[in-house]
Structure formats: C-alpha cells, structure tokens
C-alpha cells in the first residue's frame, strides 16, 4: 500500500468510526419538559430508537425538528386514560370502522412526530401501511385523538398541539381536563367548543355513534 492509499484508507476508517456512540442525557441538567435540537436532526429510525429505549419519558418531535420530552403521565391521569382507552377500544371493535391505539406516535405532514394518549384511525387507512412500516411511526394522522391535561402540562402548549392535530388532518380531537372538569372539542374549520362538566360526550364525524360517559373520569 502506498502512503497515499494508506491515507485514504485511514480517512475512510475514521469516517466510518465516526458513529455509533451512546449519548447520555442526564435529566439533572435537563428538567422535564425539555426541548433539545440535534444538528443534524435525528433520522426517523434514530427517533424511534430514542423513544423505545427511553420509555420512562414521553418523546415527540416538533415540526421545526426540536425533540420535545416530558414526563410520562402521573397515576391519576393514567387511571382515567386507562378507563377511556378501554371505552374507545371496546366501542371501536363493535363499530368495526377503525382501530384504537394507546400512546401511539404519528409522523404528521408538517414534519412533526406527535404522540397521543389515545388515538383512533380508520382501519382502511392503517392497512395502507405494511407491517414493516407499522413497526415505526406511520406517516399519517389518526382520525380522532384524545389528549389529557395534567399538572406538568402547559395549557397553552397543549392547546397549540390540539390545533396542530387538526391542521395535520385529524377530524376530531378532545382535550380532557379533569381539574377544571372541562372538555374542549376541536374540529377542522370550527372554533374549539368547550363543554363544562359534561356527563357524557358524543362522538361526531369519524366516530359518530361513540359516547363517552364522563362519570369515571371526574371521580
């Protein structure tokens, strides 16, 4: 090998060695919720791996590429979201048009990757994705989402996020706040509608026919 070839080989080795490092992000300096940006941005598979290996944290990607991290739900929220998930899931199975997902991540048209506590998507739409694609975050918006307000949430942030769901193709989105006992309903082209202390909520649009009894949520 000539010296020049040796140099080239070395260059190649060093370039190839230039990856595959494990990065620790200590939470002491990064109290959650936190937003960090990677440059170059994380690829889809890096983002998936990051979410999977850190499931003690809720990870999303903003439309501008920033990675948003927040704590997972506190017990009380997890309790009522569990009830609601069961209700939506049972209804979805009987109804037959759509599939209910808990804690799913969706890659939205604006470049963001958003997770919802509960989402529902037309099965026909979901079936357009291969099994392999479904192992990652599928690149579509669900048709219906439910989000919960909890103590670590910034209300303004969540309201903005609800608007983003709609802007990205979600047909119906509910924001449930158990502290104020309100449910805010978002639909495309309409102003958000606030229901105060409703005893039940009626599904419209894609989930017409679904009725969520709020008794267990407000308890």
């Amino acid at each position, binding site marked *: 090998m000539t010296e020049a070839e040796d140099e080239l080989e070395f260059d190649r080795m*060093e370039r190839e060695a230039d990856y595959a490092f494990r*990065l620790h992000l200590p939470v002491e300096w990064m109290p959650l919720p936190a937003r960090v940006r990677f440059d170059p941005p994380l690829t889809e598979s890096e983002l998936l791996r990051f979410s999977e290996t850190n499931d003690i944290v809720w990870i999303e990607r903003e439309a501008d590429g920033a990675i948003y991290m927040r704590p997972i739900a506190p017990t009380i929220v997890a309790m009522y979201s569990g009830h609601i998930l069961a209700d939506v899931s049972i209804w979805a199975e009987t109804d037959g048009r759509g599939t209910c997902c808990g804690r799913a991540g969706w890659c939205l048209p604006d470049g963001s990757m958003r997770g919802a506590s509960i989402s529902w998507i037309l099965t026909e739409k979901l079936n357009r994705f291969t099994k392999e694609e479904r192992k990652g975050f599928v690149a579509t918006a669900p048709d219906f989402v439910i989000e919960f307000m909890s103590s670590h949430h910034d209300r303004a942030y969540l309201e903005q996020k609800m608007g983003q769901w709609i802007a990205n193709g979600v047909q119906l989105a509910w924001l449930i706040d158990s502290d104020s006992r309100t449910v805010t309903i978002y639909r495309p082209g309409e102003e958000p509608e606030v229901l105060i202390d409703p005893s039940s909520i009626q599904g419209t649009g894609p989930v017409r026919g679904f009725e969520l009894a709020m008794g267990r949520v407000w308890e």
Partner: protein
Amino acid sequence: MDMTLSSLPLPVRLRPDVPMSDLDLIRFSRENRPLRMEREPNGEILIMSPTGYKTGKLNLKVGRFLDEWAEIDGRGVVCDSSTGFKLANGAVRSPDAAWVSNERDAKLTEQEQEGFGPLCPDFVIELTSPSDKLPDVWKKITEEWMAAGAQLAWLIDVKNRTVTIFRPGEEPETLFDPTSVQGDGPVRGFELVMGRVWG
C-alpha cells in the same frame, strides 16, 4: 435518571432550550466519556467522537514538546487537549495544546481552576484530524482564539503537512512541510521540530 441515545452519528450539535450551565456541561462531559464536548457561543453543545489513534499520537507529542520547552523556559504553563477554556462570548473550547503565561495563570482562583479556565490561552495549537473540515478549524482559530485575545496560534494540517501561523492583526502565514516552526511573541524561543512530530 438518564436518557440514552444509542448509535448516534457524530459529530452532532445539541441545543437544549434551557442552556447548560458550566457545571451542567462538566457533568454532561463526564457522563459521556470519551466523547468530546465544546459549547458554542449560542449555547449549542458540539459533541464529537473520541480522537482517532493517529491524531491522538500526534496530539500528545506536540503537547509534550511544548510542555518540555515551557518547563525549562519558565514563563508559562501548558494545558492538554481535554482542557476547556471559557471565552468571553460564552463559548467553551478546547485547543489541542495551549500555553498560558504564569502571570495570567496565577490570577485564577482555586475555584476558577476547577472549572473551565475563564481565559483565552496566549498561544494555542490546533491539529486537523481527518474528520475535521479545514475551514471549520480555520474559523475556530480566527473567530474564537484570535478574537478572544490569543497572541499566537498554529494550525497543523496533518494531511497536507502545512503549518499556518496566526498573529494578531496580520494575515495568516502558511508554511509548507517546514522542518521546524519557530515560536514568537509569547512563546519566543520555542521550536517545534516537525520531523519529531510526524515521527
């Protein structure tokens, strides 16, 4: 609690919404050995892979020659390539070798010495490793070290065997495959014999 990101391609820049304090950065670096970190003036953390074998060898040699000379010369002290210097623009940078006059070294309190050195070295040496982009290193020298008050900087381009000399208020001067480079200004009397560096 720690979050981890495995198989991350480097270098990568990390910009937290809440900027890292000096202490955070020291902890973050420690948690992530042997990765190398620098902080950009805008708070971005530049995360780099560990030094390659060849660069590491050359790096230590250059530092050793400078330190051997400095000890006999007696006017200043030398810091290794893992030392962080905190510049006035908020950046934390590490040159491959740095020389600081005794006078400025003595002004640092014990506490300051434990954190990132809150000063710009009088003389810095940067080596380009194969993964470095020459314009980036050039920019680091002119826009950071020289702008922050370094009196002399050398850029050793390992691949092309050139040494570029930067002095305040002067155009950089590039020497092609020199047999040795003579120190001037703060390190007058230092001679780096390049044959010993290339080995």
